[in-house]
């Protein structure tokens, strides 16, 4: 099988820093793949290997089966990359920027397609504006356009929504999701976890240059998956006493194995005639998984559910 992206034992050291440490994984065509990790984990270094910007000390990387070192002309044709930094060439207009980028990939007479990209990115009225006159959000859109202008099957986005307002973030998500549905493989790096949780299928978590977890997001979540319900009521139904993990006056923290159990709990409350004053559901999210796996921060501990069996 030809993978969209393949890393084979990729390692890279910068002086004392082991930026990438024996990284191997594959991404199948059509996947929406998330690469997560704290700052300095090696995310940008790893995706830079795909574009030939960083050369590994050992190991190999492939884009659509083309070795990024020995067959770089073909591997780069298959790859569109949106860099993290807001870079631009101040000499040119938006349209020229896209025309050049198309030409660098051997794509000529692409004006119709460029118009289409401009339209989808909401840049039609900026087409003939100089790059330096654009706002940060607009420059970010042009970078996305530049990555797409040669219709690459694999799109890599390095923190695409960093410093982007809510409106543009949602517009970008919608646009990228559409590209993925149309068959593009998407590799997204982010440390904005809700983004990965909403968009990605499989997720790899990187820490200090190593992959510490790699799985489908549901399976990444499931070992930690238990839902906590904070119930404010006079008492808890007898059948649920064993599930109470913490009790503070009229506030009870109750553990559910699955969210569906909430229905059973509500039925029991009704049957016992207990009036519910307040009810909050607290679900495990990717952030908690991430913090556990990368072992950082007290913030995660605060939000983690109380361990089962803790005396109340």
């Amino acid at each position, binding site marked *: 099988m030809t993978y969209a992206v393949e890393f084979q034992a990729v390692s890279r050291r910068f002086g004392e820093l082991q930026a990438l440490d024996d990284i191997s994984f594959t991404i199948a065509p059509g996947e929406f793949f998330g690469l997560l990790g704290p700052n300095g984990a090696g995310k940008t270094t790893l995706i830079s290997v795909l574009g030939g910007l*960083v050369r590994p000390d050992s190991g190999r990387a492939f884009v659509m089966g083309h070795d990024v070192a020995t067959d770089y002309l073909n591997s780069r044709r298959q790859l569109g990359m949106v860099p993290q930094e807001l*870079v631009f060439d101040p000499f040119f207009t938006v349209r020229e920027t896209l025309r050049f980028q198309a*030409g*660098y990939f*051997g794509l000529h007479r692409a004006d119709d397609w460029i118009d289409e990209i401009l339209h989808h990115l909401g840049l039609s009225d900026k087409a003939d504006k100089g790059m330096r006159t654009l706002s940060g959000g607009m420059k970010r859109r042009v970078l996305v356009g530049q990555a797409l202008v040669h*219709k690459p099957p694999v799109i890599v986005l390095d923190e695409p929504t960093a410093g982007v307002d809510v409106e543009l973030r949602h517009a970008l998500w919608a646009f990228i999701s559409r590209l993925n549905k149309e068959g593009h493989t998407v590799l997204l790096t982010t440390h904005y976890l809700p983004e990965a949780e909403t968009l990605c299928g499989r997720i790899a978590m990187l820490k200090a240059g190593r992959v510490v977890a790699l799985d489908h997001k549901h399976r990444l979540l499931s070992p930690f998956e238990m839902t906590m319900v904070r119930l404010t009521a006079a008492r808890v139904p007898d059948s649920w006493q064993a599930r109470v993990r913490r009790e503070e006056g009229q506030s009870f923290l109750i553990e559910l194995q699955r969210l569906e159990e909430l229905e059973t709990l509500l039925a029991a409350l009704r049957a016992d005639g207990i009036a519910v004053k307040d009810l909050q559901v607290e679900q495990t999210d990717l952030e908690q998984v991430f913090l556990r796996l990368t072992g950082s921060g007290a913030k995660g501990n605060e939000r983690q559910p109380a361990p089962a069996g803790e005396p109340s």
Partner: protein
Amino acid sequence: MNDRTTFEAPGSTWHMLFYKEVLRFWRVSFQTVAAPVIMALLYLLIFSHVLESRVSVFGGSVSYTAFLVPGLVMMTVLQNAFANTSSSLIQSKITGNMIFFLLAPITPWGFFLAYVLAAVLRGTVVGIGVWLVAALFFAPELWRPAAPLWAIAFGFLGGAILAMLGMIAGLWSEKFDQLATFQNFIILPLTFLSGVFYSVHSLPAFWFGVSHLNPFFYVIDGFRYGFFGVSDVSPWLSLTFVGTVGAVLTWGTWALIARGWKLRI
């Protein structure tokens, strides 16, 4: 994909990089083309006025003003070819937009050709500008160069050599003052001490000898031969020297790009 859009064979992609480089200097042509022409003409005005009656060159067969013009044309070609590659690369490096073509399927040769040819083109445009104005107002005998092919050959080689040195300087420099160091301490002395303003035969023996180690001397002397059919050394010797320097630099610059020196980490 739209029917009219077409992918061309790998290797053809450098044309767009060349076009981008040309458009880059053309966008600011007042600064990159007009200004150097004015500067060269000011040199011409002042030096020819002050020195016309005091300096004799080629045994008096050529007027000093006429002698000066090819030197100034060539100096302008050299300086602008250097400025084009070096400033373009350092700007791309500092603003980070180099990533746009580093991610593209452009071979090291394509990268090399695009930058060198665009720089030679800028040098040529500026050089022709100086030549036209000088011939029109100062030295009408320059309308008809004695051996134009020699002038073209040395103009191209000189421009290409400086474009390559500009590429190396632009790749090497991390900031603008490093580039200025390269320019002020290497390029400028070599250009000024190459016989732009004088015939090396008028120099003391030591400096006469030193001049013969300066490749820019051969570029200018050979270029001048193209205009007058007379020169300080044989144009064949100059061509050999300049050609060798050009070949070594071509290989060196290409090797640096192919290794990704200061481009890919």
